[in-house]
């Protein structure tokens, strides 16, 4: 953190810039909210107001009670929860190996995880669909969990690796000397220290699976298995978009992630860069 003391003009200017930028950052979200409480599906008005006249929560009522919102919510929760569990576990272990151990295939392995992120999603959607169909995992939670975990892993592995690298080797050596085997050293000593990194990985996994729509659209045809994004997509059908219900659904989808982001933002700042410095 720089230790300079800024003059008052500079400080005011900085605050001004930040305020304007913050408004720009937040306005679209507020606008979605405004649409969700607007009465009568009327989309257009020439005001910049957020709260329209006659604001009502009827869209939320309709969403929760008349649409299968609860089913979508259930599906999203299941899929996201297990994606997080699986993602964190696998990234924690794999990242550790990459960070602390030297073994043949280490460098290629890292590069592999980097390259894998370069595949355009269009490339993988159809074959993935066919593959899952063969093993009967389309339209199941498991299929989606596997797909999401896979897409989330490469970045998470890199992330955890960076985090582990900031933990001095001496701690591990001490643990080994004390008679713990490798796994115990990992589990009892290193892992707790890396918990901020785990939190970030969890957040990232959750966000990716909770918000994801393309894969959900391709894999889930059975309406009982729709996740939240897939569900509200149906509300935005071509000509007659039920704007207020769609907006209400959007707000509901956004809330968990936004709240987590806000709470964990301090973790995020530190965690994303560690390891990159050491490269």
């Amino acid at each position, binding site marked *: 953190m720089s230790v300079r003391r800024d003059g008052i003009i500079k400080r005011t200017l900085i605050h001004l810039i930040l305020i304007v930028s913050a408004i720009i950052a937040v306005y679209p979200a507020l606008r979605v909210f405004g649409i969700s409480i607007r009465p009568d599906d009327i989309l257009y008005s020439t005001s910049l107001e957020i709260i329209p006249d006659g604001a009502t929560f009827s869209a939320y009522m309709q969403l929760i009670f008349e649409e299968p919102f609860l089913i979508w919510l259930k599906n999203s929760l299941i899929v996201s929860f297990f994606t997080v569990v699986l993602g964190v576990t696998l990234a924690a272990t794999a990242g550790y190996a990459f960070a602390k151990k030297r073994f043949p295939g280490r460098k290629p392995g890292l590069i592999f995880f980097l390259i894998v992120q*370069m595949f355009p999603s269009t490339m993988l959607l159809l*074959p993935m669909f066919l593959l899952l169909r063969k093993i009967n995992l389309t339209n199941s939670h498991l299929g989606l969990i596997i797909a999401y975990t896979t897409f989330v892993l490469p970045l998470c592995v890199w992330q955890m690796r960076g985090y582990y690298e900031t933990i001095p080797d001496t701690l591990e050596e001490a643990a080994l000397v004390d008679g713990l085997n490798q796994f115990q050293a990992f589990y009892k000593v290193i892992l707790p220290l890396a918990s901020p990194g785990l939190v970030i990985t969890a957040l990232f996994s959750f966000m990716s699976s909770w918000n994801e729509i393309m894969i959900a659209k391709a894999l889930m045809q059975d309406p009982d298995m729709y996740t939240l994004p897939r569900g509200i997509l149906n509300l935005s059908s071509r000509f007659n978009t039920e704007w207020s219900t769609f907006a209400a659904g959007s707000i509901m989808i956004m809330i968990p992630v936004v709240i987590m982001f806000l709470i964990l933002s301090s973790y995020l700042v530190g965690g994303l860069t560690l390891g990159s410095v050491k490269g």
Partner: protein
Amino acid sequence: MSQPTKADIQKNSLLDFSLRKFLKRNGFSYLMLMPAFIIVALVIIYPFLYNFNLAFTNLSRSTLIDFLREGKLHYIGLNNFVEVLTQSTFWTVLLRTLIWTIVNVFCHVTFGIFFAILLDRDMIFKGIYRALLILPWAIPQYISVLVWKGMFNYNYGAVNILLERLSQIFDFTYEPIAWLSNPTTGFMAAIIVNVWVGIPFMMMIALGGLQSIDPNYYEAAEIDGASGFQQVKHITLPLLKPVMMPAVILGVIMTFNNLNVIYLLSFKKLTEKIDILVTYVYKAAFGYFRLGYAAAFSVIIFLILLGFSTVFIKQNESH
């Protein structure tokens, strides 16, 4: 482990000896690594290879039935690749994608570092500003892009309304802009939206990087009489570079392959006029079911990205 007899050692010596030791030394690592690797390999590698295979076939709407019923595929060699590369639209779209990526990433990094520097000081509301500026990353793109699409509406969009109000306050002439009717302004609108979406990521990485810069550097510079700008130029930026490098690579990949913004903004407004590579492929695959063609196209996109990353990493490894 029992003591091996002399005979045993002689018999198995080279093979067993190194294998066991090898496993003992590295077994744990592989064990830790395997689950992640297996999943990624199966779920990504297998489709990748499958896709690669499809690229050499003529799978399309007319041949789809045979494929679905009996798994029959008709191979046509490199025809798909040739078709992709000889289409003039491919090169236009490629150029547009390059411009898209370069402009976007440049803005992402610049604004990201800018905001990070602004926030990297003791100030009230710092937490609030940071939290709000991160928000665009938390919102699913298919929601935020649709909202932006509404905001770019000619008559009732927030952007034009704001511009009009500003023109009244600051007294300049203003003609409403038909953002989503014109390819040029449409492309600009798409870039604005994508920049909005992408700044938080870069900002957070830069913030983290700034935190690890030793304040002593700044103090020393201050003593030497360096101005704020000079400090940024000579201390902050160079020290941020190693931190931003991986982020830039990731950013390039994500922007290059970002389907959502262009697809949703141009849907029914600027059909096919501001396509980048991935949206073009998506339409071919899922709109027209030209699956063989789309597979070949995807492979080409991948190779382009691969080439770029290799060059980029090699160039920066020397530093």
